[in-house]
């Protein structure tokens, strides 16, 4: 155990070996943003193809590959990692911890996600991406020619492992690492909702793992789980996928709800209305999220009894969600509202998400669902909840926490242009799709005919998509042009929770002294009932921190190599890959690594400079 500072001078090596939750958070954000842009380009290509009837911009096979990769990329590789980025960066700060519970596993989770995502996208260059939709229903997926679906299976298996590891890590962090005085019912709502989302990850991802494993055995090793002529059952895949898939959408939306619950009280200058009701509603949503998966399968033929049960369970979720919406509205009620960009996203979220929620209840009516199923009505619904909820939440979080994470504030004027153009573009794109669906346009079709009456609305939809892209480009530019806004970054919004008591960006050990939490909205309490500074829960002393390590990348790389071996059934490659992975795990197990201490003199030096 050394007391020396072990951080490397080489910047690239430093990022590759980091176990610091803040750096891993930024890596998650960068990786997620890369895949977000990739998924966005795929969406734009599809919208161009659908701009005119019988347009020949793309072939049907390419269109199928694009729609599959758009869905898979946006859910697994963009939305979830971007949320993980915020969770990684913010949760330890909000609970007054110096790192997550398992820093090594945290790094491992990130690299598994990145390698899994890259593995999936390699399929574009090896003869065709997966083409069976992001749901990969059998027998379409089990019979799909080429290696595309194999990349889907292995890529998601590797990145899914990373997500599961990340979820467990957040659970243990929240339970074990809270600062003195930070009881569960004093935790900020972003931490609470991320905690519940992590529970959902823990219970939902095993179902996906099993489904992917069965499909892998079927495709690569001649298994017969889904082959009807050998006594298999194709419906099992749909059940397994949606037992995972429905909680997955709550894994996405709950942390976004948490972000809004931080942003709205801050900019309304009021404490969150009904804190305990919000926590309770989050838990109820998490529980009910597991009881409704079959509402994706109303037309499969489960029978009227099963359909009715799942329809009623689905409608029940509107109750806790409604509690949340009303609590946000009542937080705003009578508040001193500031219309910053972060708050605009939160305010734009409320009506947009409610529209998605209303179509959700419509879809839950199982009799009407026979009409809506697999039409653009469904496409409009889930884009309203995922963009209007999750993506708006990500942008709100980005504008809200950017000063804390990067030490400069994003330009507000450009931010407002970004918000309004994106909001208008979003509604243009997806509002008309409700009517396209009701007119009978099916989802996932590569084209439509002249006389079907879909032309005008598809054209409007594509124009809206262009507007969203322009808006997003403004955001990307503002990241680089705002770098000089470095004044007033420590607590720019008059914050309420612990993360605003640190420097911006925070010191790599976060808190020189662990703070003592005296109530809900800990920082706000000290501002109005204390002297405006957190009380310390410990004397100034040496701080113990984990050592950086390269092993997470080696473990992930080994699994990626083994995945190529499975995809092309090259047995020696499987052994080499798994050998690398297990070798690295063995080294991790036997090598003693107790971390290092930051001496108290260095902390005092940091405090004087900051």
């Amino acid at each position: 155990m050394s007391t020396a500072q072990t951080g490397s001078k080489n910047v690239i090596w430093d990022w590759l070996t980091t176990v610091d939750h803040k750096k891993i958070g930024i890596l998650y954000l960068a990786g997620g943003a890369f895949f977000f842009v990739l998924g966005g380009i795929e969406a734009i290509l599809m919208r161009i193809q659908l701009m005119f009837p019988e347009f020949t911009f793309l072939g049907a096979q390419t269109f199928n590959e694009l729609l599959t990769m758009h869905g898979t990329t946006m859910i697994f590789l963009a939305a979830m990692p971007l949320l993980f980025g915020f969770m990684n960066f913010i949760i330890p700060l909000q609970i007054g911890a110096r790192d997550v519970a398992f820093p090594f596993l945290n790094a491992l989770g990130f690299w598994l996600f990145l390698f899994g995502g890259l593995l999936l996208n390699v399929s574009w260059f090896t003869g065709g991406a997966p083409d069976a939709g992001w749901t990969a229903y059998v027998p379409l997926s089990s019979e799909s020619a080429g290696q595309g679906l194999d990349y889907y299976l292995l890529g998601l298996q590797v990145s899914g492992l990373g997500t599961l590891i990340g979820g467990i890590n957040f659970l243990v962090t929240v339970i074990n690492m809270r600062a003195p005085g930070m009881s569960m019912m004093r935790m900020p709502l972003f931490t609470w909702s991320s905690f519940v989302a992590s529970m959902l990850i823990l219970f939902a991802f095993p179902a996906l793992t099993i489904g992917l494993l069965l499909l892998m055995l079927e495709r690569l090793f001649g298994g017969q789980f889904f082959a009807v002529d050998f006594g298999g059952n194709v419906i099992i895949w749909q059940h397994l996928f949606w037992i995972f898939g429905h909680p997955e959408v709550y894994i996405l939306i709950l942390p976004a709800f948490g972000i809004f619950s931080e942003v709205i009280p801050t900019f309304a200058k009021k404490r969150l209305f009904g804190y305990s009701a919000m926590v309770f509603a989050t838990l109820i949503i998490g529980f009910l999220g597991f009881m409704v998966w079959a509402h994706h399968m109303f037309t499969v033929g489960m029978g009227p009894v099963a359909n009715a049960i799942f329809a009623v369970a689905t409608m029940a979720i509107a109750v806790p969600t409604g509690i949340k919406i009303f609590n946000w509205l009542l937080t705003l009620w009578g508040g001193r509202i500031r219309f910053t960009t972060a708050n605009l996203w939160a305010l734009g979220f409320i009506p947009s998400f409610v529209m998605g929620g209303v179509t959700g209840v419509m879809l839950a009516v199982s009799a009407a669902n026979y009409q809506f199923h697999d039409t653009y009505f469904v496409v409009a619904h889930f884009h309203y909840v995922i963009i209007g909820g999750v993506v708006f939440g990500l942008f709100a979080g980005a504008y809200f926490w950017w000063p804390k994470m990067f030490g400069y504030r994003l330009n507000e004027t450009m931010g407002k242009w970004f918000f309004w153009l994106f909001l208008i573009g979003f509604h243009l794109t997806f509002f008309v799709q409700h009517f396209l669906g009701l007119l009978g346009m099916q989802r996932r079709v590569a084209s439509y005919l002249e006389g079907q009456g879909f032309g005008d609305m598809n054209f409007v939809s594509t124009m809206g998509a262009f507007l969203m892209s322009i808006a997003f480009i403004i955001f990307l530019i503002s990241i680089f042009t705002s770098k000089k806004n470095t004044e007033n970054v420590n607590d720019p919004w008059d914050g309420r929770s612990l993360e605003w008591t640190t420097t911006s960006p925070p010191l790599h050990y976060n808190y020189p002294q662990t703070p003592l939490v005296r109530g809900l909205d800990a920082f706000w309490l000290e501002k109005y009932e204390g002297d405006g500074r957190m009380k310390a829960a410990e004397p100034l002393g040496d701080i113990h921190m984990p050592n950086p390590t390269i092993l997470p990348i080696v473990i992930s790389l080994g699994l990626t190599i083994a995945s190529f071996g499975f995809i092309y059934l090259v047995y020696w490659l499987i052994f080499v890959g798994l050998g690398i992975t297990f070798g690295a795990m063995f080294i991790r197990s036997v090598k003693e690594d107790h971390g290092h201490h930051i001496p108290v003199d260095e902390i005092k030096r940091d405090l004087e400079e900051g």
Partner: protein
Amino acid sequence: MSEHVDPTAPLQGEPSKSTERKLRKEARVQIVSYFLMIFMTSLAFFSIASDAVDSSFAIPFIVIVGAVQVVMQLYVFMHMGEKGTGWINTMIWSGILIAALTVGALMFLIGIVKY
């Protein structure tokens, strides 16, 4: 200064009288439970091998024996009944609840009603 404790370091000093009594009792419970577990495993095996249990009740019978063993494993050998395990209990039992509900529903939905 908060010294980082090496978790693999050997313990110092002697246990107190009451701790020693508790440890002896604990050891007795562990050994009895161990033989009980072996008994239940062989019970499951021999009840099927010898046709002692009626074939219509065979699967429910070994599932019940298995469930008892799972609970004993969790509470005796993995110490889930001790202090400070509230969150572990919450998570394990909500996981079991969700898994049981989904597996049960799934079996009915794909039409398995006979054992």
